[in-house]
Protein backbone atom coordinates (compact mmCIF):
# COMPACT_ATOMS: atom_id res chain seq x y z
CA UNK A 1 0.00 0.00 0.00
CA UNK A 2 2.94 2.27 0.65
CA UNK A 3 4.11 1.57 -2.87
CA UNK A 4 0.68 2.23 -4.31
CA UNK A 5 0.38 5.44 -2.37
CA UNK A 6 3.92 6.63 -3.09
CA UNK A 7 3.01 9.27 -5.71
CA UNK A 8 0.55 11.01 -3.41
CA UNK A 9 2.20 10.45 -0.04
CA UNK A 10 5.07 12.95 -0.39
CA UNK A 11 3.04 15.33 -2.48
CA UNK A 12 0.36 16.10 0.07
CA UNK A 13 1.97 15.06 3.33
CA UNK A 14 -0.24 15.92 6.28
CA UNK A 15 -2.47 18.07 4.08
CA UNK A 16 -3.95 14.78 2.93
CA UNK A 17 -5.27 14.12 6.42
CA UNK A 18 -6.45 17.62 7.23
CA UNK A 19 -7.52 18.90 3.82
CA UNK A 20 -11.25 19.23 3.32
CA UNK A 21 -11.30 19.47 -0.46
CA UNK A 22 -11.45 16.38 -2.65
CA UNK A 23 -11.09 17.60 -6.21
CA UNK A 24 -9.74 14.97 -8.61
CA UNK A 25 -10.11 17.34 -11.58
CA UNK A 26 -7.62 19.79 -10.15
CA UNK A 27 -5.58 17.13 -8.39
CA UNK A 28 -6.37 18.28 -4.85
CA UNK A 29 -6.95 15.49 -2.37
CA UNK A 30 -7.89 15.92 1.31
CA UNK A 31 -9.80 13.32 3.31
CA UNK A 32 -10.65 15.01 6.61
CA UNK A 33 -14.42 14.86 5.89
CA UNK A 34 -14.18 11.16 5.13
CA UNK A 35 -12.16 10.41 8.27
CA UNK A 36 -14.80 12.26 10.27
CA UNK A 37 -17.55 10.48 8.35
CA UNK A 38 -16.07 7.09 9.22
CA UNK A 39 -15.63 7.90 12.89
CA UNK A 40 -19.03 9.55 13.28
CA UNK A 41 -21.03 6.80 11.53
CA UNK A 42 -19.26 4.08 13.51
CA UNK A 43 -19.66 6.03 16.74
CA UNK A 44 -23.40 6.54 16.27
CA UNK A 45 -23.78 2.94 15.17
CA UNK A 46 -22.22 1.78 18.44
CA UNK A 47 -24.32 4.21 20.47
CA UNK A 48 -27.42 2.62 19.00
CA UNK A 49 -26.33 -1.00 18.87
CA UNK A 50 -24.47 -1.48 22.15
CA UNK A 51 -27.45 -1.01 24.47
CA UNK A 52 -29.67 -2.89 22.03
CA UNK A 53 -27.42 -5.89 21.57
CA UNK A 54 -26.34 -6.23 25.19
CA UNK A 55 -29.95 -5.86 26.29
CA UNK A 56 -31.00 -8.55 23.84
CA UNK A 57 -28.19 -10.85 24.98
CA UNK A 58 -29.06 -10.40 28.66
CA UNK A 59 -32.72 -11.02 27.96
CA UNK A 60 -32.02 -14.13 25.93
CA UNK A 61 -29.50 -15.75 28.22
CA UNK A 62 -30.83 -14.73 31.63
CA UNK A 63 -34.52 -14.04 31.47
CA UNK A 64 -36.19 -15.42 28.36
CA UNK A 65 -38.11 -18.69 28.63
CA UNK A 66 -36.08 -21.64 27.38
CA UNK A 67 -38.20 -22.25 24.27
CA UNK A 68 -37.55 -18.71 23.06
CA UNK A 69 -33.79 -18.70 23.57
CA UNK A 70 -32.48 -20.85 20.78
CA UNK A 71 -34.78 -19.74 17.94
CA UNK A 72 -34.26 -16.04 18.61
CA UNK A 73 -30.54 -16.52 19.22
CA UNK A 74 -30.30 -18.42 15.96
CA UNK A 75 -32.05 -15.68 14.01
CA UNK A 76 -29.74 -13.05 15.50
CA UNK A 77 -26.67 -15.04 14.57
CA UNK A 78 -28.05 -15.57 11.08
CA UNK A 79 -28.25 -11.80 10.70
CA UNK A 80 -24.52 -11.62 11.32
CA UNK A 81 -23.96 -13.69 8.20
CA UNK A 82 -26.10 -11.63 5.83
CA UNK A 83 -23.94 -10.02 3.09
CA UNK A 84 -23.59 -6.29 3.49
CA UNK A 85 -25.01 -5.48 0.07
CA UNK A 86 -28.28 -6.99 1.26
CA UNK A 87 -28.27 -4.66 4.23
CA UNK A 88 -27.61 -1.87 1.73
CA UNK A 89 -30.70 -2.84 -0.24
CA UNK A 90 -32.72 -3.04 2.93
CA UNK A 91 -31.44 0.42 3.80
CA UNK A 92 -32.47 1.77 0.40
CA UNK A 93 -35.85 0.09 0.27
CA UNK A 94 -36.99 0.48 3.86
CA UNK A 95 -34.86 2.85 5.85
CA UNK A 96 -34.26 5.64 3.34
CA UNK A 97 -37.99 6.29 2.70
CA UNK A 98 -38.66 6.08 6.43
CA UNK A 99 -35.91 8.55 7.25
CA UNK A 100 -36.89 10.86 4.43
CA UNK A 101 -40.60 10.70 5.14
CA UNK A 102 -40.79 10.83 8.91
CA UNK A 103 -37.62 10.68 10.99
CA UNK A 104 -35.59 13.41 9.29
CA UNK A 105 -38.44 15.95 9.03
CA UNK A 106 -39.26 15.33 12.69
CA UNK A 107 -35.64 15.80 13.74
CA UNK A 108 -35.44 18.93 11.62
CA UNK A 109 -38.54 20.47 13.13
CA UNK A 110 -37.65 19.49 16.69
CA UNK A 111 -33.90 20.02 16.68
CA UNK A 112 -33.35 22.04 13.50
CA UNK A 113 -32.00 24.91 15.59
CA UNK A 114 -28.92 22.84 16.35
CA UNK A 115 -26.31 22.52 13.62
CA UNK A 116 -26.06 18.80 14.47
CA UNK A 117 -29.50 18.04 13.10
CA UNK A 118 -30.27 20.89 10.73
CA UNK A 119 -29.96 21.47 7.01
CA UNK A 120 -31.18 19.49 3.99
CA UNK A 121 -31.47 15.78 4.54
CA UNK A 122 -30.22 14.52 1.20
CA UNK A 123 -33.43 12.69 0.40
CA UNK A 124 -33.01 10.33 3.31
CA UNK A 125 -29.52 9.24 2.29
CA UNK A 126 -27.31 10.74 4.91
CA UNK A 127 -24.91 10.12 7.79
CA UNK A 128 -27.66 9.16 10.21
CA UNK A 129 -29.24 6.67 7.81
CA UNK A 130 -25.88 5.01 7.20
CA UNK A 131 -25.27 4.90 10.94
CA UNK A 132 -28.58 3.15 11.53
CA UNK A 133 -27.78 0.58 8.83
CA UNK A 134 -24.39 0.02 10.46
CA UNK A 135 -26.06 -0.33 13.85
CA UNK A 136 -28.36 -3.03 12.48
CA UNK A 137 -25.36 -4.78 10.95
CA UNK A 138 -23.16 -4.84 14.06
CA UNK A 139 -25.92 -5.64 16.55
CA UNK A 140 -25.90 -9.39 15.76
CA UNK A 141 -22.13 -9.51 16.11
CA UNK A 142 -22.03 -7.79 19.49
CA UNK A 143 -25.09 -9.65 20.67
CA UNK A 144 -23.75 -13.06 19.70
CA UNK A 145 -20.40 -12.49 21.40
CA UNK A 146 -22.11 -11.09 24.50
CA UNK A 147 -24.40 -14.12 24.65
CA UNK A 148 -21.41 -16.44 24.49
CA UNK A 149 -19.69 -14.51 27.28
CA UNK A 150 -22.78 -14.59 29.47
CA UNK A 151 -23.22 -18.30 28.88
CA UNK A 152 -19.62 -18.83 29.99
CA UNK A 153 -20.28 -17.35 33.45
CA UNK A 154 -20.21 -20.28 35.91
CA UNK A 155 -23.47 -21.14 37.64
CA UNK A 156 -21.88 -20.73 41.06
CA UNK A 157 -21.34 -17.02 40.39
CA UNK A 158 -25.07 -16.47 39.85
CA UNK A 159 -25.84 -18.58 42.89
CA UNK A 160 -23.34 -16.65 45.01
CA UNK A 161 -25.20 -13.43 44.24
CA UNK A 162 -28.62 -15.03 44.73
CA UNK A 163 -27.58 -16.52 48.06
CA UNK A 164 -26.79 -13.01 49.32
CA UNK A 165 -30.38 -12.02 48.64
CA UNK A 166 -29.98 -10.59 45.16
CA UNK A 167 -32.95 -10.44 42.83
CA UNK A 168 -32.50 -11.90 39.36
CA UNK A 169 -31.60 -8.52 37.90
CA UNK A 170 -29.23 -7.75 40.74
CA UNK A 171 -27.53 -11.11 40.26
CA UNK A 172 -27.17 -10.35 36.55
CA UNK A 173 -25.58 -7.00 37.33
CA UNK A 174 -23.47 -8.04 40.30
CA UNK A 175 -22.21 -11.43 39.23
CA UNK A 176 -22.88 -12.07 35.55
CA UNK A 177 -22.15 -8.81 33.73
CA UNK A 178 -19.08 -8.04 35.78
CA UNK A 179 -17.71 -11.51 35.24
CA UNK A 180 -18.35 -11.38 31.50
CA UNK A 181 -17.29 -7.81 30.86
CA UNK A 182 -14.00 -8.58 29.13
CA UNK A 183 -15.85 -10.75 26.63
CA UNK A 184 -18.55 -8.13 26.15
CA UNK A 185 -15.96 -5.44 25.44
CA UNK A 186 -14.36 -7.83 22.99
CA UNK A 187 -17.69 -8.11 21.19
CA UNK A 188 -18.05 -4.34 21.05
CA UNK A 189 -14.59 -3.97 19.57
CA UNK A 190 -15.40 -6.63 17.02
CA UNK A 191 -18.56 -4.72 16.10
CA UNK A 192 -16.62 -1.48 15.92
CA UNK A 193 -14.15 -3.09 13.54
CA UNK A 194 -16.96 -4.16 11.29
CA UNK A 195 -18.55 -0.70 11.35
CA UNK A 196 -15.31 1.12 10.60
CA UNK A 197 -14.53 -0.97 7.56
CA UNK A 198 -18.03 -1.47 6.18
CA UNK A 199 -18.21 -0.32 2.60
CA UNK A 200 -21.14 -1.44 0.53
CA UNK A 201 -24.09 -0.77 2.81
CA UNK A 202 -22.68 2.63 3.70
CA UNK A 203 -22.05 3.60 0.09
CA UNK A 204 -25.65 2.81 -0.71
CA UNK A 205 -27.15 4.90 2.06
CA UNK A 206 -24.84 7.72 3.04
CA UNK A 207 -25.47 10.05 0.10
CA UNK A 208 -21.85 10.08 -1.08
CA UNK A 209 -21.07 13.75 -0.77
CA UNK A 210 -17.40 14.52 -0.25
CA UNK A 211 -17.93 16.91 2.60
CA UNK A 212 -18.84 16.83 6.26
CA UNK A 213 -21.29 19.57 6.99
CA UNK A 214 -21.48 18.89 10.70
CA UNK A 215 -25.12 17.88 10.46
CA UNK A 216 -25.98 14.24 10.98
CA UNK A 217 -28.85 14.38 8.54
CA UNK A 218 -26.73 15.69 5.70
CA UNK A 219 -25.17 13.42 3.12
CA UNK A 220 -21.55 12.56 3.75
CA UNK A 221 -18.87 10.06 2.91
CA UNK A 222 -16.69 7.57 4.70
CA UNK A 223 -13.19 6.51 3.71
CA UNK A 224 -14.27 3.13 2.49
CA UNK A 225 -17.32 4.40 0.62
CA UNK A 226 -15.17 6.98 -1.16
CA UNK A 227 -12.77 4.31 -2.34
CA UNK A 228 -15.65 2.12 -3.51
CA UNK A 229 -17.28 5.00 -5.33
CA UNK A 230 -14.32 6.31 -7.22
CA UNK A 231 -11.85 3.49 -7.72
CA UNK A 232 -13.34 2.29 -11.00
CA UNK A 233 -13.40 5.73 -12.50
CA UNK A 234 -10.11 7.00 -11.19
CA UNK A 235 -7.95 8.28 -14.01
CA UNK A 236 -4.33 9.18 -13.66
CA UNK A 237 -1.63 7.93 -11.40
CA UNK A 238 -2.10 10.56 -8.72
CA UNK A 239 -5.85 9.95 -8.40
CA UNK A 240 -5.42 6.18 -8.01
CA UNK A 241 -2.57 6.67 -5.59
CA UNK A 242 -4.66 9.07 -3.49
CA UNK A 243 -7.36 6.40 -3.20
CA UNK A 244 -4.79 3.84 -2.13
CA UNK A 245 -3.56 6.30 0.44
CA UNK A 246 -7.10 6.51 1.83
CA UNK A 247 -6.93 2.77 2.29
CA UNK A 248 -3.73 3.25 4.21
CA UNK A 249 -5.28 5.95 6.39
CA UNK A 250 -8.31 3.74 7.01
CA UNK A 251 -6.02 0.95 8.13
CA UNK A 252 -4.19 3.27 10.51
CA UNK A 253 -7.39 4.81 11.86
CA UNK A 254 -8.86 1.36 12.48
CA UNK A 255 -5.67 0.28 14.21
CA UNK A 256 -5.62 3.43 16.33
CA UNK A 257 -9.27 3.12 17.34
CA UNK A 258 -8.70 -0.50 18.28
CA UNK A 259 -5.66 0.34 20.36
CA UNK A 260 -7.52 3.10 22.18
CA UNK A 261 -10.47 0.76 22.78
CA UNK A 262 -8.16 -1.97 24.11
CA UNK A 263 -6.44 0.48 26.44
CA UNK A 264 -9.81 1.63 27.67
CA UNK A 265 -10.92 -1.93 28.32
CA UNK A 266 -7.66 -2.76 29.98
CA UNK A 267 -8.00 0.19 32.33
CA UNK A 268 -11.61 -0.56 33.17
CA UNK A 269 -11.01 -4.26 33.78
CA UNK A 270 -7.85 -3.79 35.76
CA UNK A 271 -8.94 -0.70 37.65
CA UNK A 272 -12.37 -2.18 38.35
CA UNK A 273 -11.00 -5.15 40.24
CA UNK A 274 -9.30 -2.90 42.71
CA UNK A 275 -11.17 0.37 42.97
CA UNK A 276 -14.50 0.39 41.11
CA UNK A 277 -17.81 0.06 42.94
CA UNK A 278 -20.60 -2.33 42.06
Amino acid at each position, binding site marked *: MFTGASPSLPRFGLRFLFGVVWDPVHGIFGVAPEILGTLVTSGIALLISVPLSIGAAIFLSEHAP*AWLRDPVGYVIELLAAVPSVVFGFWGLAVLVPLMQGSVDPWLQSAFGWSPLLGGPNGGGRNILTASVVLAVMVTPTISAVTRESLAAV*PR*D*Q*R*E*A*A*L*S*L*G*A*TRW*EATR*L*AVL*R*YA*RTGIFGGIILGLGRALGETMAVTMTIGNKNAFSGSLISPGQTMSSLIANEFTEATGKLYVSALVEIGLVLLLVTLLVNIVARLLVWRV*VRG*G*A*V*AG*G*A
Partner: protein
Amino acid sequence: MPTKLETVQLSAFYAKKEAIHEVSLAFPEKTVTAIIGPSGCGKSTLIRCLNRMHEVTPKATTTGEIRLDGEEIHALDPVSVRRRIGMVFQKANPFPTMSVYQNVSAGLRLNGVRHRKELDAAVVRSLKQAALWDEVKDNLDGPGIRLSGGQQQRLCIARALAVEPEVILMDEPCSALDPIATAKIEDLIFDLRQNYTVVIVTHNMQQAARVAEFTAFMYLGKLIEIDRTQKLFENPAEKLTEGYITGRFG
Protein backbone atom coordinates in the same frame (compact mmCIF):
# COMPACT_ATOMS: atom_id res chain seq x y z
CA MET B 1 -33.47 -25.69 72.11
CA PRO B 2 -36.26 -24.27 70.00
CA THR B 3 -36.49 -25.31 66.38
CA LYS B 4 -35.19 -22.68 63.98
CA LEU B 5 -35.78 -24.38 60.67
CA GLU B 6 -37.67 -27.53 59.78
CA THR B 7 -38.80 -29.51 56.80
CA VAL B 8 -42.09 -31.39 56.73
CA GLN B 9 -42.57 -34.20 54.22
CA LEU B 10 -40.21 -32.43 51.86
CA SER B 11 -39.67 -34.01 48.45
CA ALA B 12 -37.55 -32.47 45.71
CA PHE B 13 -37.53 -33.19 42.01
CA TYR B 14 -35.40 -32.52 38.96
CA ALA B 15 -38.02 -32.60 36.22
CA LYS B 16 -39.78 -35.93 37.04
CA LYS B 17 -36.87 -37.51 38.89
CA GLU B 18 -37.25 -37.52 42.64
CA ALA B 19 -34.01 -36.60 44.44
CA ILE B 20 -35.27 -36.57 48.03
CA HIS B 21 -38.35 -38.28 49.37
CA GLU B 22 -40.56 -36.95 52.18
CA VAL B 23 -37.84 -35.72 54.49
CA SER B 24 -39.02 -34.35 57.84
CA LEU B 25 -36.18 -32.84 59.77
CA ALA B 26 -35.81 -30.15 62.44
CA PHE B 27 -32.77 -27.94 62.90
CA PRO B 28 -32.47 -26.55 66.47
CA GLU B 29 -31.54 -22.91 66.94
CA LYS B 30 -27.88 -21.97 67.44
CA THR B 31 -26.56 -25.44 66.92
CA VAL B 32 -24.59 -27.11 64.19
CA THR B 33 -26.40 -29.92 62.40
CA ALA B 34 -24.48 -32.10 59.96
CA ILE B 35 -26.05 -34.06 57.12
CA ILE B 36 -24.02 -37.08 56.06
CA GLY B 37 -24.54 -39.82 53.52
CA PRO B 38 -22.98 -41.32 50.40
CA SER B 39 -22.71 -39.35 47.17
CA GLY B 40 -26.04 -38.96 45.42
CA CYS B 41 -28.10 -39.49 48.57
CA GLY B 42 -29.76 -36.10 48.15
CA LYS B 43 -28.02 -34.20 50.93
CA SER B 44 -26.93 -31.34 48.67
CA THR B 45 -30.39 -31.16 47.14
CA LEU B 46 -31.90 -31.00 50.61
CA ILE B 47 -29.69 -28.12 51.71
CA ARG B 48 -30.38 -26.25 48.48
CA CYS B 49 -34.10 -26.49 49.15
CA LEU B 50 -33.64 -24.77 52.50
CA ASN B 51 -32.85 -21.36 50.98
CA ARG B 52 -34.94 -21.95 47.86
CA MET B 53 -31.82 -22.29 45.71
CA HIS B 54 -33.10 -25.61 44.40
CA GLU B 55 -35.82 -23.90 42.40
CA VAL B 56 -33.23 -21.79 40.53
CA THR B 57 -32.26 -24.91 38.58
CA PRO B 58 -34.52 -25.23 35.50
CA LYS B 59 -37.42 -27.66 36.00
CA ALA B 60 -36.56 -28.25 39.66
CA THR B 61 -39.56 -28.41 42.01
CA THR B 62 -40.44 -29.35 45.58
CA THR B 63 -43.46 -30.56 47.50
CA GLY B 64 -43.96 -30.44 51.23
CA GLU B 65 -43.12 -27.66 53.63
CA ILE B 66 -40.09 -25.80 54.93
CA ARG B 67 -40.64 -23.60 57.97
CA LEU B 68 -38.34 -20.86 59.21
CA ASP B 69 -39.42 -19.76 62.72
CA GLY B 70 -42.68 -21.54 62.02
CA GLU B 71 -43.31 -19.64 58.79
CA GLU B 72 -43.62 -21.52 55.50
CA ILE B 73 -40.77 -20.12 53.37
CA HIS B 74 -42.52 -20.78 50.07
CA ALA B 75 -45.05 -18.17 51.12
CA LEU B 76 -42.25 -15.62 51.50
CA ASP B 77 -40.29 -13.75 48.87
CA PRO B 78 -37.27 -15.95 47.95
CA VAL B 79 -35.05 -12.87 48.11
CA SER B 80 -35.99 -12.22 51.74
CA VAL B 81 -35.60 -15.93 52.56
CA ARG B 82 -32.06 -15.90 51.19
CA ARG B 83 -31.21 -12.77 53.18
CA ARG B 84 -32.11 -14.66 56.33
CA ILE B 85 -30.55 -17.98 55.26
CA GLY B 86 -27.03 -17.58 53.92
CA MET B 87 -25.12 -20.16 51.94
CA VAL B 88 -21.52 -21.30 51.49
CA PHE B 89 -20.85 -23.43 48.44
CA GLN B 90 -18.79 -26.52 47.78
CA LYS B 91 -16.30 -24.66 45.64
CA ALA B 92 -15.17 -21.24 46.87
CA ASN B 93 -16.82 -18.72 44.56
CA PRO B 94 -15.65 -15.20 45.39
CA PHE B 95 -16.57 -12.57 42.81
CA PRO B 96 -13.41 -12.49 40.67
CA THR B 97 -13.73 -8.86 39.61
CA MET B 98 -13.99 -7.61 43.19
CA SER B 99 -11.51 -6.85 45.92
CA VAL B 100 -11.60 -8.59 49.30
CA TYR B 101 -13.46 -5.60 50.71
CA GLN B 102 -15.99 -5.53 47.87
CA ASN B 103 -16.59 -9.26 48.14
CA VAL B 104 -17.41 -9.08 51.82
CA SER B 105 -19.55 -5.98 51.48
CA ALA B 106 -21.37 -7.11 48.31
CA GLY B 107 -24.44 -8.37 50.16
CA LEU B 108 -24.75 -5.23 52.26
CA ARG B 109 -24.43 -3.00 49.21
CA LEU B 110 -27.18 -5.06 47.60
CA ASN B 111 -29.30 -4.23 50.61
CA GLY B 112 -28.66 -0.55 49.99
CA VAL B 113 -26.07 0.11 52.69
CA ARG B 114 -23.93 2.97 51.42
CA HIS B 115 -22.33 4.46 54.53
CA ARG B 116 -18.64 3.81 54.41
CA LYS B 117 -18.38 3.53 58.20
CA GLU B 118 -21.15 0.98 58.39
CA LEU B 119 -19.60 -1.05 55.57
CA ASP B 120 -16.13 -0.82 57.14
CA ALA B 121 -17.44 -2.09 60.46
CA ALA B 122 -19.29 -4.99 58.86
CA VAL B 123 -16.27 -5.99 56.76
CA VAL B 124 -13.97 -6.03 59.79
CA ARG B 125 -16.51 -7.91 61.92
CA SER B 126 -17.22 -10.54 59.24
CA LEU B 127 -13.58 -11.12 58.39
CA LYS B 128 -12.77 -11.56 62.08
CA GLN B 129 -15.66 -13.99 62.51
CA ALA B 130 -14.41 -15.91 59.50
CA ALA B 131 -10.90 -16.00 61.01
CA LEU B 132 -9.46 -14.29 57.96
CA TRP B 133 -8.88 -10.77 59.25
CA ASP B 134 -5.24 -11.20 60.29
CA GLU B 135 -4.33 -12.61 56.90
CA VAL B 136 -5.96 -9.95 54.73
CA LYS B 137 -6.14 -6.79 56.85
CA ASP B 138 -3.21 -5.20 55.00
CA ASN B 139 -4.59 -5.99 51.57
CA LEU B 140 -8.33 -5.39 51.68
CA ASP B 141 -8.24 -3.73 48.25
CA GLY B 142 -6.42 -6.62 46.61
CA PRO B 143 -8.46 -8.98 44.44
CA GLY B 144 -10.24 -11.73 46.38
CA ILE B 145 -9.33 -14.25 43.71
CA ARG B 146 -5.61 -13.99 44.59
CA LEU B 147 -6.12 -15.59 47.99
CA SER B 148 -5.36 -19.27 48.56
CA GLY B 149 -8.17 -21.83 48.25
CA GLY B 150 -8.77 -22.01 52.00
CA GLN B 151 -8.69 -18.24 52.32
CA GLN B 152 -11.14 -17.92 49.45
CA GLN B 153 -13.56 -20.23 51.19
CA ARG B 154 -13.26 -18.23 54.41
CA LEU B 155 -13.79 -15.08 52.31
CA CYS B 156 -17.04 -16.62 51.08
CA ILE B 157 -18.02 -17.41 54.65
CA ALA B 158 -17.28 -13.79 55.60
CA ARG B 159 -19.37 -12.64 52.64
CA ALA B 160 -22.28 -14.76 53.86
CA LEU B 161 -21.85 -13.56 57.47
CA ALA B 162 -21.74 -9.88 56.51
CA VAL B 163 -25.48 -9.69 55.88
CA GLU B 164 -26.08 -11.18 59.35
CA PRO B 165 -28.25 -14.13 58.35
CA GLU B 166 -29.99 -16.24 60.96
CA VAL B 167 -29.10 -19.58 59.39
CA ILE B 168 -25.97 -20.55 57.46
CA LEU B 169 -26.03 -23.46 55.03
CA MET B 170 -22.72 -25.04 54.06
CA ASP B 171 -22.56 -27.48 51.19
CA GLU B 172 -19.40 -29.55 51.65
CA PRO B 173 -17.37 -26.39 52.34
CA CYS B 174 -14.06 -28.20 52.84
CA SER B 175 -14.19 -30.78 50.08
CA ALA B 176 -11.65 -28.89 47.94
CA LEU B 177 -9.31 -27.93 50.79
CA ASP B 178 -6.20 -29.38 52.37
CA PRO B 179 -6.29 -30.61 56.02
CA ILE B 180 -4.85 -27.40 57.48
CA ALA B 181 -7.36 -25.16 55.71
CA THR B 182 -10.07 -27.65 56.65
CA ALA B 183 -9.10 -27.49 60.32
CA LYS B 184 -9.34 -23.69 60.27
CA ILE B 185 -12.81 -23.79 58.79
CA GLU B 186 -13.93 -26.48 61.21
CA ASP B 187 -12.81 -24.33 64.15
CA LEU B 188 -14.71 -21.48 62.63
CA ILE B 189 -17.89 -23.52 62.19
CA PHE B 190 -17.64 -24.62 65.80
CA ASP B 191 -17.55 -20.97 66.91
CA LEU B 192 -20.38 -19.88 64.64
CA ARG B 193 -23.02 -21.75 66.62
CA GLN B 194 -22.89 -19.10 69.34
CA ASN B 195 -24.73 -16.78 67.00
CA TYR B 196 -26.03 -18.81 64.11
CA THR B 197 -27.96 -21.92 63.24
CA VAL B 198 -25.63 -23.89 61.00
CA VAL B 199 -26.49 -26.74 58.63
CA ILE B 200 -23.48 -28.44 57.05
CA VAL B 201 -23.47 -31.12 54.39
CA THR B 202 -20.40 -33.32 54.43
CA HIS B 203 -19.34 -36.75 53.31
CA ASN B 204 -16.53 -36.68 55.82
CA MET B 205 -17.82 -38.41 58.96
CA GLN B 206 -14.92 -37.24 61.12
CA GLN B 207 -15.80 -33.70 60.18
CA ALA B 208 -19.39 -34.21 61.28
CA ALA B 209 -18.14 -35.68 64.53
CA ARG B 210 -15.86 -32.69 65.13
CA VAL B 211 -18.20 -29.81 64.39
CA ALA B 212 -21.81 -30.91 64.78
CA GLU B 213 -24.04 -31.43 67.82
CA PHE B 214 -26.62 -33.22 65.72
CA THR B 215 -26.06 -35.44 62.73
CA ALA B 216 -28.59 -36.66 60.18
CA PHE B 217 -27.91 -39.64 57.95
CA MET B 218 -29.46 -39.76 54.50
CA TYR B 219 -29.52 -42.65 52.06
CA LEU B 220 -31.07 -42.84 48.58
CA GLY B 221 -33.03 -39.63 49.02
CA LYS B 222 -34.49 -40.59 52.40
CA LEU B 223 -33.71 -39.46 55.91
CA ILE B 224 -32.68 -42.59 57.77
CA GLU B 225 -32.15 -41.09 61.20
CA ILE B 226 -31.11 -37.98 63.08
CA ASP B 227 -29.65 -37.90 66.57
CA ARG B 228 -27.03 -36.31 68.77
CA THR B 229 -23.78 -36.78 66.91
CA GLN B 230 -22.12 -38.91 69.56
CA LYS B 231 -25.13 -41.17 69.85
CA LEU B 232 -25.46 -41.56 66.10
CA PHE B 233 -21.86 -42.58 65.70
CA GLU B 234 -21.59 -44.80 68.77
CA ASN B 235 -24.99 -46.35 68.97
CA PRO B 236 -27.07 -45.79 65.84
CA ALA B 237 -30.70 -46.88 65.90
CA GLU B 238 -30.76 -48.04 62.30
CA LYS B 239 -28.84 -50.88 60.69
CA LEU B 240 -28.24 -48.75 57.56
CA THR B 241 -26.57 -46.02 59.61
CA GLU B 242 -24.39 -48.51 61.33
CA GLY B 243 -23.37 -50.04 58.04
CA TYR B 244 -22.44 -46.64 56.62
CA ILE B 245 -20.42 -45.37 59.58
CA THR B 246 -18.56 -48.61 59.98
CA GLY B 247 -17.63 -48.43 56.32
CA ARG B 248 -19.56 -51.43 55.05
CA PHE B 249 -20.89 -49.39 52.12
CA GLY B 250 -20.98 -45.86 50.73
